């Protein structure tokens, strides 16, 4: 059931000293989600999470840059919702209105398994470059740049 790490997939296995209901809330309650999701120094001014199959998610991350605040939007859809057990959603970088920007369409899968008062969480985050011209473009740009910089 749990996928293996590959170059296109991050898999992280963690056990938290908390019940599955609380870990589930970390992913599904906007207030809780905003408390941990943003990188250090960043904030999550918008987290709209319609947690049901087909429900949209819309997250804004704001971080300071040398040229002022940078706002990034992430939008997607929940595809599997089994409360306290399994959550799957898709996500991509978009503009504020939801139009795809650069970057892959990705899928995040969160499996929870409570044992006693602890909960094991296996998260996998998969990049789906197919059908995503922006993603390919970005990767190609990086590849080209790296080739150029390494003088080949």
């Amino acid at each position, binding site marked *: 059931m749990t996928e293996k790490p590959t170059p296109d997939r*991050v898999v992280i296995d963690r056990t938290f*000293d908390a019940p599955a209901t*609380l870990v589930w809330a970390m992913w599904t309650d906007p207030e809780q989600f905003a408390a*941990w999701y943003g*990188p250090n120094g960043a904030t999550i001014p918008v987290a709209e999470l319609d947690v049901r199959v087909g429900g949209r998610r819309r997250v804004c991350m704001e*971080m300071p840059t040398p040229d002022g605040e940078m706002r990034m939007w992430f939008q997607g859809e929940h595809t599997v919702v089994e409360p306290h057990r399994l959550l799957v959603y898709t996500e991509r970088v978009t503009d504020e209105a939801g139009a795809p920007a650069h970057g892959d369409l990705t899928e995040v899968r969160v499996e929870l398994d409570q044992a006693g008062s602890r909960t094991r969480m296996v998260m996998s*985050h998969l990049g789906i470059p197919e059908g995503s011209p922006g993603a390919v473009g970005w990767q190609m740009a*990086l590849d080209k*740049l790296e080739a150029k910089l390494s003088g080949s």
Partner: protein
Amino acid sequence: MDEEQLTDTFVALANSTRRAILGRLALGAATVSEIAEPFDVGLPAISKHLTVLERAGLVQRGRNAKFRPCTLDASPIRDVASWADQFRPVWEERFDRMEQHLQQLQTTDRESAP
């Protein structure tokens, strides 16, 4: 590579002038005025871009030489080349914060319980 460095690298690369500067430095070390020459913007703007590149570890500046020539270090770009490698440290840090947040929540719950 930690998340802050990763962010710095992406911020540094997300600008066509800075990518052009890296392209120029791929040909060899150059002073700020040599780098600025083909661009329409002035020296202060180029200096600002170089500072961003330097913070990301993509450019190193000589300390002692009078004109502080800039040289290229492409290793941060190789670090973001793999999709999974790029996201793993981001998630690891997020889950560190999730763990702290869970602890705080449960401590507060216990303290506020009668």
